[in-house]
Every structure is written in structure tokens, then in C-alpha cells.
């Protein structure tokens, strides 16, 4: 990472740690660009077998952000939350761009490789999911965050429970119902 963006990220992280919510918003594009830059670097052919590597790279960068003990944060939930949000942005943007490229709109191919997102292999339309998730959040903000943390953030049920400050049993129950709701939303989307 360039020294500039590194300094910038640090400043934002520190501000956010002190409770400045605007810093969080500013942080997302900066870190996002950084993750993309990394992915591009890998995809420039520095490695022969780049497909999985880029996934691994972004994954690891993310894990590094998320898994660190960060006691200076006022609230661990904020941190996990922003990281999960970040991944959602990256993946959904990626999916949108691919969609645009497929339609021949001439959009530049985004750095991240399809291998990155098993969701697509599993037949999940990330763009549709993103829309549905936004609607779910409007309906039930805790469920929205829960899905974001679990699916985009990769947190386990236990970890999600810690972040949301509820019991694992509650997470499981909320998870099942939110999932059913999203499944139905996506089905409807497919049919239109």
C-alpha cells in the first residue's frame, strides 16, 4: 500500500475508534480501493495460478482486518460491521460490473475474479441479493446486519452473537427466518 493511503487509513481508523461515524463512511472507499489494488496487482500475472490466489489474497486481507484483536475500538461490533459492509460493497460492485460487461456495455472488467465469489457459482445473484438485503434491513435492521455479518463477513453463529450482543440461540432463530424471507424475495426476483 502506498504510504499515503496507509496514513489515511490509519487516521480514519483512529478517528472512527474515537466514535467519529463520518470516518467510518470515509473508510469504506479507501479500504475498498486498497483491496482492489491488491487484487489487480495479483491479476497482472505476477502469479501463474491467479484465480484462487486473488480470492485467497482478498480473503486474507479481510481476515486480517477482522480477526485482529482491536481493543482500542469503542465497540467491536462497529469494526466487524464495517468490514462486512465493505465486503458486501466489493462483491456486489464486482457482480454489477460483470453484469455490465456481459451486456456489452464496455465496462472495464473489474479486478476481482469470479472465483472470488462462490455465491455466484452457487447460483446466487449478488445484485438481487443486495437489493433484497436492503429491503430486509428496512424491515428489520438487526436481521439485515445479521445476514451481512454471516454471509459477507463470514462470521460464525457464535461470533455473530458476540457482535450483535445477543445469544447464539437468538442468532439461529433470526437467521432461519431471515433466510426464508430472502429466499422468497430472490425467487420472486427470478420470476420477474
Amino acid at each position, binding site marked *: 500500500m502506498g504510504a499515503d493511503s496507509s496514513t489515511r487509513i490509519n487516521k480514519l481508523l483512529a478517528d472512527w475508534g474515537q466514535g467519529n461515524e463520518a470516518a467510518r463512511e470515509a473508510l469504506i472507499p479507501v479500504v475498498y480501493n486498497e483491496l482492489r489494488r491488491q487484487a489487480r496487482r495479483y491479476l497482472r500475472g505476477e502469479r501463474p495460478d491467479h484465480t484462487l*490466489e486473488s480470492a485467497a489474497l482478498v480473503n486474507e486481507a*479481510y481476515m486480517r482486518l477482522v480477526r485482529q484483536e482491536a481493543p482500542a475500538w469503542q465497540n467491536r461490533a462497529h469494526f466487524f460491521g464495517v468490514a462486512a459492509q465493505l*465486503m458486501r460493497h466489493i462483491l456486489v460492485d464486482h457482480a454489477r460490473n460483470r453484469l455490465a460487461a456481459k451486456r456489452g456495455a464496455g465496462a472495464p472488467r473489474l479486478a476481482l475474479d469470479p472465483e472470488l465469489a462462490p455465491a455466484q457459482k452457487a447460483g446466487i445473484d449478488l445484485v438481487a441479493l443486495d437489493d433484497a438485503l436492503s429491503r430486509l434491513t428496512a424491515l428489520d435492521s438487526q436481521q439485515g446486519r445479521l445476514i451481512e455479518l454471516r*454471509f459477507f463477513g463470514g462470521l460464525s453463529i457464535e461470533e455473530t452473537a458476540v457482535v450483535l450482543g445477543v445469544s447464539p440461540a437468538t442468532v439461529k*432463530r433470526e437467521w432461519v427466518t431471515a*433466510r426464508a424471507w430472502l429466499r422468497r424475495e430472490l425467487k420472486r426476483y427470478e420470476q420477474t
Partner: protein
Amino acid sequence: MQERWQEVKKVLAGALERAPSERHAFLDQECAEPALRLEVESLIAAHEQAQTSFLAEPAIPTKELTIGSSLGSYEILSRIGAGGMGDVYRANDNKLGRSVAIKVLPPALVDDPARLARFKHEARMLAALNHPNIVTLHSFEEAGGVHFLTMELIEGHSLNRLIPNGGLPIDQILNFAVAISEALAAAHDKGIIHRDLKPANVMVTNEGRVKVLDFGLAKEIRTEYSEDTILTSAGFTEAGVVLGTPPYCSPEQISGRAVDHRSDIFSLGTMLYEMAAGQRPFQGNSAAELASAILRDTPRPLGELRAGMPDGLCRVIQRCLQKNAEERFQTAREVLSGLRGSATAKAEGSSAARAEEGFWVAVLPFEYRGANAEIAALCEGLSEDIVTGLSRFSYLRVIARSSTLRFAHAAGDVRAIGRELGARYVMEGSLRQAGSILRITVQLVDTDSGSHLWAETYDRAFHAEEIFALQDELVPRIVATVADTRGVLPRTMGEALRGRDPEELTPYEALLRSFAYHHRVNAEEHAAARAGLERALKRAPNNADCWAMLSHIYREEYAHGFNVRPDPVGRAFAAARRAVEIAPSNHLAYFALAAAQFFQREVQSFRNNAERAISLNPMDGFTTAFLGFQIAYSGDWERGCALVERAIRLNPHHPGWYRFAFFFDAYRKGDYRGALDVALKVNMPGFWRTHLALATAYGQLGERDAARQAVRELLAIRPDFAMAAREELGKWWDPELSERLIDGLRKAGLEIVPK
């Protein structure tokens, strides 16, 4: 709409919790309103359609292993945890039928061959550590593209979950502190630095044993940050995101400077502080504030945060937390020594009580009244290194330097100082310069009797640029002369206890009492030492020093024929094994193990363990000499004789038998004149081997009168020697050398009974 969803959700959750066959009845009961029922039913249908994997697998693959799957010969049972170092699983080793922990390495590490190679090297060193307070690394493996470490599975809790708000009980802090310091000492001896010591990396097993995790493994992860990639060094360090665990980082770590083992000592200090106070010594609302606190703030005194904190423990923690590495304890062993001092002070309440327990040793700061800065530095360095050196002898109780410093310029009666410190033995020294000569005087005083136990004067040419060399030359000599099991202190301690009723000795006293055997090698002393140690081990079955000494005593049944019971070498080996298991960094334990293996003719293991014993404590002249001649007799004459020479240099007052290795080396080469010269220097009349050496050398040289005289003296001590010679010689020397010795005896006039 939101309220409606809450209502729907409640019914839906209730329905989904029930078996499909029961849902219909449940909905009949819950849904008065048909629209609600329709809504819930459509969601149940969606739930049924969704495969269980829907959204369950994260958008980003986490490379998690599936529970129940196989990885090589391991079956993955459950996920234990995750971390920057990779995910950890509990697994069953199907080959060996045991449970292990498996740590999957992160892809970025695995994909870089150079880093992977370095990591493997680190892992190999770690695997060789084998310490009861360090989680054992079993193997480094690869299966199906997954690289992983297998480790000892620890059933217990990590320390960060065990520290209550008000801190841990003092004796528990001390136990944990000693265990972690022992682990650090063992690792640092091998050049392995932990680099990420924190409560989350310390496990306490369900039996209460302490195990430190992830030794040195942070290194390769760390390297990655210093390289070009995403998270470069300084900035992220400040932000507190990357370098693992900033609250426990040392100032040099947090500012990105070079780190050595003393960084671990700082981290240990932060952990001990947290254990004592229930809160960390350095805090900040942001990462930058935290970094600033580590670099600049002095932690609040523990005494203010917690009543009843022992002063000694506070001082130990404070010393660990010095910003400047030079001002911390320099080694983990020094920490141990400090902890032991504070433990006893705590347990006994006062230094007066410490004196009662007995046999504490204090090294006062050496005295120098001149103005030369180099000499002043040497003066300080000498006493400090002597303390460190003495601390390597597990059976000595050395008072921490932090307690003795206040006597730096105290003019006063040594006996009074000793009483104040609770030290029975006090070492003091002085440095004086006269022209180009530096005179260093060191003496050891028994404050009980006021008698001087030992004093030595070293005159050396003084060159300012060579003070470190001088320090390195003098410290091992001083330490070896007073501290090894045959040294001034153990001899004095052993003698002081000889008059006491053996039944009344504490285990520690029984150990010290057994050292007297080294000075009176006879059956009576042997029996007393053995009985005392066996009794001590009934009371203190985990005393490694006692097991090691008992091993020596059992082995002596075989070597000297004293008080023989069945299978002395086997018992010696078993006792030594026990000692090594209890204290894998105890040099006496390895000494005992090697010495027993010599007689078991396990040449390779013997040599490995002998070298290990010597490297664990190179200042032990007795160990070096004894294993030196065993190594020589096992066939490596060059190495063995070199070790014996070193032992002789360590202690000019060494026992004569140190030289036997040179005698047999010359004799086997046919240099009988040279051999005789050595034999004449041994000067141990009354020891059968002296007369054997003289008889065989004179015999080979044809000096018949002297040879016969030597044979007479040999037979006076060992009347059975004509009968026993072959067996006796065969214990120590190979058949060829044994026959040559028998030939020498024949020429001296003693016919040995044929095989």
C-alpha cells in the same frame, strides 16, 4: 410494515422449530387471520426450497475444513478457534490414535516458497523445544493442498478468560509467572523469540498447568507486513490493527525497531501487570493513544490498584516494563530468580524468615571508587552477570539484583547486610586500578559464622576496549568455582547439613545434603544421600533436582559398588528421565540422563544429551568435566578432552580426577611417559584409579619398583582387583583399551584372572 414482519417472524420461527408434521396444527392455533397464515406458509415453502447451504457458506471462501472430513490421516472433529495464524481444529490422529490440534496455515504464507521454508525451519526448531510449559508441536504436514501444523491438544482455557476484574490471587500469579518465564527461558536458549506473548496465547489446562502457544510463529506473519504489501509497518502499528496485540507490544515493537528476546520480557510484564491489577498497564482510547502510552507512560503503581501486593512482585513487574530493554531483566532466568525471591518473601512474610528457610545467596554490587567509566561499567556488569550465572543453577536460591542494589555503596558489616537481605551467603567484590593493572577481588562470606568461604584475586592488564572480554572470562570462572555441585557453595551447604537429623531435613535441604557425597565418595555418604533423596521425593515428587541427584546416586551404585540394589543403571536412567520430564531446561537432569546412558551403551543418545546438558549450563565445570571424560571414553577423545580442558580452566581448584581423560588418551596412544606425567598430577591418593594409572604407566615404562609400589597401593584399596579388573575396566573403557590396561598391570606384576 415492520410490526407486521415481527408478527410474521414470531409465528414463522415457532413453526420452523417444529417438525413439519406438527406445523399445520401449530398454525391453526396461532393464525387467527388468514392473510397471516398465507404469509407464513409461503415463507415456510421458501424455507423448504432453500438448500441448507443457502447463504450459509460465506460469500468469501474461508477455506474452513469441514467437520468430519479427513485431512491426511487426521479426522477433523471440531473447530476450536481462528486467528491471524490460521484456523485451529480438534482432530483425531488415526495413525497414533490420539487427539491433536491442527492449525491450518494461511494461504499467503503457504504460497510463498521462501517464507514457507523459513516457517518450516522455525517450526522444526519449535518442535525440538519439548518443554512442559510450551505447547508441543508434533509435525508440519501437507495433505490435499492444505498445509498444517499438528500440535498437542490442550484441554483448558486461555488466560485472557481467567483474569477477573480485581486480578488473580497472588500465588496463582506467581505460579503462572514462573511457568511462563520457564517457557521463555527454554525458548530463548534456542534463539526462539515469541513476539506475540499475550494472555490469549497462554493456556491453562484443566489440571492447572500452563502452556504457552504459538512460540515464534508470529515471525513469518510479521515479515509479511514489512514487505511491500497492503499493510506496511509503522502506520498500521500505530493504528493498532496489524501487529496482533498492541496492548502487549514492547516499545521497540510498536515503533518498528529491531526486536530481541527482551521484547518478550516486556510483554510478560504487561501480562503480569494485568494478572495483578485486572487491567492493562497501558491504555488508550485510540490505537495512537495506546502506542503513545506504551512508548511514554509509566504505568500506575500496582500498589495503588491493589492492596496487599507484595513489594517483590511489584518490583519484578516494574523491571519487566522498563521502556529501555537494557534496563529490564536481561534474561527470563533473571525474571525467574526475581520471582523466586518475591515468592519466598511473600510466603514467609519477611527477609528474616527467608534466612530461616536458609541458604539464600546474595551478590552485592561490586565496589569501585575510581572515576573510570569503563571500569565502573565492568564493575556493574560483573555482579549482574554473576547473578545471572548463579541463577542457572536450579538448586541455588539467589536473591534478585533489584533487592541488592540498595547496598551498592553501603559501607557496613557484611553479616548485617546478609541478615537484612535474608541471605546466608554474601558475595562481594571490588575493583581497583593501579597503572595498567586492574585488580579484581571477589569473596564469599558465610554470614552465619562470618567466615570467608572463598576469595580470589584476579590481576589483569586493563584495556578499555576489552572490558567485555574480561567480563566474559571472569564471570564463568567465578560462577563455576562457587556454584557447580562440587563448588564452594554446594560443598558448604552440604557440610552444614551433615550434622542434622536426616529425618528433619526439608526436600531442599536433603538435596543440598546429597552434594556432600561429591566430597566424600564412600559407601556411608552414599547411603545417607540416597536415603535423604528418596525421602525428599516422597514429599516433593516433582523436584527435578532431587530426581537428578538420585539418578547420580543410583548410578554410583554401579560405578563404585556402593550399597548395590538390583539394576542400578536402569534406576538411574528412570530417575533422570523423570527429572527431564519435570524440568526440560534443567542441566542437571540432562547430565544425569546422559551419564546413565553412557553405561547403557546408548552412545548416540548419550552424546546428544551430554551436549545438551553442557549447553544448558556451560558454567557448570563439574558437569563439563564428568561428561567430558565420558565422551572421551565413548570414543570421541578429542571432544572429550577439550571439554575437560575447559572445565579445568573454569575452576583452577578442580578435583584431580578431571585429568584422567588426558591420562587414558595418552595411554591409548602409547605415550606412556606423557600418561605418567598426567597420573602424577592427579594427586588423589586413596582413589583406586590413581594407582591403576600409576601402575599401568610405570609397568609399560618398565619402571618395576614404582610399578609394584603402585600395585600394592591399588590392592590395599581394592583387594579384589585381580578378580574384578576386567569387569571394572569394562564399565568404562572399550575392550581394546581395557586389555592394554590389563597388559600394563601384568607388566607391573599383577596377573589378572583371564576371562
